[in-house]
């Protein structure tokens, strides 16, 4: 059992927030709004990571995704269509939206049936429950140690050591990938005039 009691409440809040924002993203009228909703979705997912005790990944998610990728998105939106979607009539959806909707709904229902109802992975629920609201007469639930001054989760250290030992080769490959991405984006994004000047 991953979450119980107080944490489950947060799970509901975050899950709802994430899903609503994701739906808002795919139905957003303009790309800037879309980027904002994407940001909200990513922050919601980061919150879920926190619930799952993945603090470092949550931090990295916000730092890289929200602070980097979304900013980049907005940057590009500003470069390519400043208000094209607002000032001119711009169809939001493509011609195949109905067909696509059917496919997605079939997918959801299929997974709902096969993956959740029939429980093929036998992921049973177990473990103790700490209720948010204790039943009358029950002993008060053990209050967790306040974080101040206590031992801190060593998630970051663990992730670091795994990243630099077991996953050292993928790490190197990722660095090469980033280098390739840098070079590729520079080559892709330069204007013809820049090409002429520097060639």
């Amino acid at each position: 059992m991953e979450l119980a009691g107080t944490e489950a409440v947060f799970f509901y809040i975050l899950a709802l927030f994430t899903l609503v924002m994701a739906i808002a993203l795919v139905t957003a009228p303009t790309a800037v709004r879309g980027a904002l909703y994407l940001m909200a979705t990513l922050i919601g997912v980061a919150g879920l990571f926190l619930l799952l005790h993945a603090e470092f990944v949550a931090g990295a998610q916000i730092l890289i995704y929200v602070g980097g990728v979304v900013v980049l998105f907005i940057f590009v939106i500003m470069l390519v269509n400043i208000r094209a979607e607002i000032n001119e009539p711009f169809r939001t959806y493509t011609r195949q939206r109905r067909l696509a909707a059917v496919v997605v709904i079939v997918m959801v229902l299929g997974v709902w049936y096969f993956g959740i109802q029939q429980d093929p992975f036998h992921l049973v629920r177990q473990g103790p429950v700490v209720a948010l609201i204790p039943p009358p007469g029950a002993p008060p639930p053990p209050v967790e140690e306040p974080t101040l001054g206590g031992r801190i989760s060593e998630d970051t250290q663990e992730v670091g050591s795994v990243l630099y030992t077991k996953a050292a080769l993928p790490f190197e490959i990722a660095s090469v990938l980033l280098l390739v991405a840098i070079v590729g984006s520079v080559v892709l994004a330069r204007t013809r005039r820049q090409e002429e000047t520097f060639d």
Partner: protein
Amino acid sequence: MVTEAMWTVLQQVPNQARTWQGFIDALLKKGINDFILLSFLLFAIGVAGVLTRRNILIIFMSIELILNAANLNFIAFTRYWQMSGRLSEHMGHVFTIFIIVVAAAEAVIGLGIVIALYRNRQTVAIDEIDLLKW
């Protein structure tokens, strides 16, 4: 979503007394299944966005949604392993970090392509870019 979750809980905890208290207790237990469901819904929303939107930028954002759904799964399963006794299990986190890295690289390249495309075709609508057809 909430009603679905409630329904799931009620289905899977039949022996729990269906009182108000039992219902709340059951509702407050969240396991791997819920995360898989959530991540799958996120994935489905992302797929829907990729399939239906006209704006390339929004399509990119939907792809980010799909990647995030995968991330969520990785983290949830890592936690599942940790709860199952493998306390030092952190490989899912590492995978997630790599996915984030790849997503960043993908966004950079993709947006570079969008800029180049816009420069040449003056549009960001995907169904107006159909050079492959000819």
